[in-house]
């Protein structure tokens, strides 16, 4: 199950739905907005945008890549868009598999591939300007 959404992520609900009697291992990963501080300034929130429907297709490709490489039961990937406050999850991955090795490996693979190929961008909104993460484009004073 692949989803790109503006709604808050509920890991408990997402994981609970992935439990299956034939899967003894459920590995999950949640990425949250980490708060950096630079002197007086701080991150107020992050803003995510996506190129859809390409982003949806790339997430589906990642699920397909997982199913080709590992024996897994459930694959759930949810990515948030819009405004995400510090400490809130921006991405959640849940992999249920018969055995734990594939569950761990597939969840790690999913987040690495998301960061490589899925056309989603985030901007840190600081108290003194913004920064496009991963690009040298910003309005806030250089630290």
């Amino acid at each position: 199950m692949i989803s790109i959404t503006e709604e808050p992520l509920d890991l408990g609900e997402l994981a609970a739905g992935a439990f299956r009697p034939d899967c003894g291992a459920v590995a999950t990963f949640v990425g949250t907005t980490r708060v950096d501080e630079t002197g007086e300034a701080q991150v107020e929130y992050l803003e995510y945008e996506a190129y859809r429907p390409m982003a949806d297709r790339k997430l589906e490709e990642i699920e397909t890549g997982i199913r080709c490489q590992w024996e897994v039961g459930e694959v759930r990937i949810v990515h948030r868009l819009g405004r995400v406050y510090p400490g809130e999850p921006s991405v959640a991955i849940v992999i249920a598999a018969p055995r734990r090795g594939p569950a761990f490996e597939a969840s790690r693979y999913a987040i690495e591939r998301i960061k490589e190929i899925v056309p989603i961008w985030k901007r840190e909104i600081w108290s003194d300007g913004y920064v496009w993460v991963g690009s040298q484009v910003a309005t806030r004073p250089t630290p």
Partner: protein
Amino acid sequence: MSTVRVLLFGAAADRAGVRQTELSPPAAGASLEEFWAVLAERYPGLAPMRDTLAFAVNGEYARLDATVSPGDEVAVLPPVSGG
């Protein structure tokens, strides 16, 4: 349709000052690289980003030697930063 729809995202939209535009390919059978030259001329703020950008044609990553034809959708993609 004689033009190409151009979508810009993230820092590229920021630098160009637009998120979407229409542009004619410079010639029949023009490559993405030739198309980029026209785009960068129109939006000079994009030019310095060149080496960091990826492109998609019709929703799939494309190389600079891909052909851009009228009716295509070209997306300008800064380094992705999801997750």
